[in-house]
Structures are given as C-alpha cells and as structure tokens.
C-alpha cells in the first residue's frame, strides 16, 4: 500500500511568487494534516481536514496560505504571495478515523529567496 506522498520534494521560489504543495494521503484516511517546520524550530500544526472539510485551521499563519482538499482525497496548500519567512519543510500526514497513529509524507522543502 502506498504511503503518504508529497509533491514536490523541493521548491525554490522568489519572494512574491506563488507555490502550490500537494499531498496524497493513504487511501481511506479521512484525516489529513498539514504541518510546518521552520529551521531549528518545532514542527507546528497548520490545519486539519476531515474528508473535504476543514476541521481546524487555527495554525495557519495568515491569509497568504490556502489549503484545499477537493473530494476528500488529495490536498493542496498554496502560498500566495510567498515571503522569506515561509521557508521551511511542509509535512503532510494522514490517519484513519479513530486511529492513534498518523502517517507522514517525506515533506516538501520550500525555500523562498
């Protein structure tokens, strides 16, 4: 069974540009999470989907970040326009309803220059 996959693995963009990150969760997992790790700091929660609905987006930094999960399958996280402080590694994770374990993707390393 395929794990959580994220695209791209790396992205380098200029300040002011737009970037879209994608996450494909494990098939059948209703819960999908986005996290971010800024260099040297903790991995921080961004938001949580249950199927296609946003259950909690309290961790989203600001309105330059937009997450979607159309049809309750894959999810995208768009940053527009990107700023230097958005650089970091963005992780996606998924879990089953009632499951205690979250399965993570390999992350997308975003560098804004």
């Amino acid at each position: 069974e395929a794990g959580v996959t994220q695209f791209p693995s790396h992205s380098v963009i200029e300040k002011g540009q737009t970037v879209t990150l994608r996450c494909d969760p494990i098939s059948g997992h209703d819960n999908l999470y986005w996290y971010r790790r800024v260099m040297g700091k903790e991995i921080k929660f961004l938001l949580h989907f249950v199927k296609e609905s946003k259950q909690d987006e309290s961790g989203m930094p600001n309105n330059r970040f937009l997450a979607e999960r159309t049809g309750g399958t894959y999810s995208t996280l768009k940053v527009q326009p990107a700023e230097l402080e958005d650089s970091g590694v963005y992780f996606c994770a998924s879990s089953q309803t009632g499951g205690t374990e979250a399965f993570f993707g390999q992350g997308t390393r975003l560098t804004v220059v």
Partner: protein
Amino acid sequence: AQTVTQSQPEMSVQEAETVTLSCTYDTSESDYYLFWYKQPPSRQMILVIRQEAYKQQNATENRFSVNFQKAAKSFSLKISDSQLGDAAMYFCAYRSALNSNSGYALNFGKGTSLLVTP
C-alpha cells in the same frame, strides 16, 4: 496549550552502544498519547514507538523502549544496540486523547539529531 521540550539538539552514540533521548512535556490533561518519530535524512518521518498515558507499563518495540514517568511528565527514548541505520532526527510528540477542535493534531518538540559512529 501543551508543550513538548527536547533539551538535546544533538546526540552521538557508537554502534552497539545504548543511547537515551530526553523529552519532557507540559499538560493539564490526564489522558493523552506520546510518540517518538524518526526522520532519516530526506526520508519520511516514521513512528518508532507510542505510549498511552493511562498505561503504566513502558512501551517497547524491539531495540527501542521508553521510560514514561507520568508524574514527572517525562518520556525518554532508549535505543539499545545502536545501528548505523538509527542515525536520524528524532521527534517527541504529544497528542490529546480528547476530541477537541484541533482533532488529533500532534505537538512536537524541536527534535534531537542522533549520530551513530562506527
């Protein structure tokens, strides 16, 4: 809010030796889960071991075991017979057992980078 603290940014261990990674957390909840995740360089983060707070017995997975001290809010990871493949970033994480607005989001520490030397 729950916080997780990993006080060791880097640790080093020789092959076949034992190493202990520290983790403390702060919470007012009585029921929760604790995890250790491992992320090898450029690879997925994978679950190493999990502990339910209501269980007194320390979790064990092969060469990995935890020392869970609930009163002290401490959750250290012991790696026995260390192998080169154990080299990775290790993250300690907390998850509430309650269904809250944040669902089952994890609270992570900053991570400990483990180097394994031959």
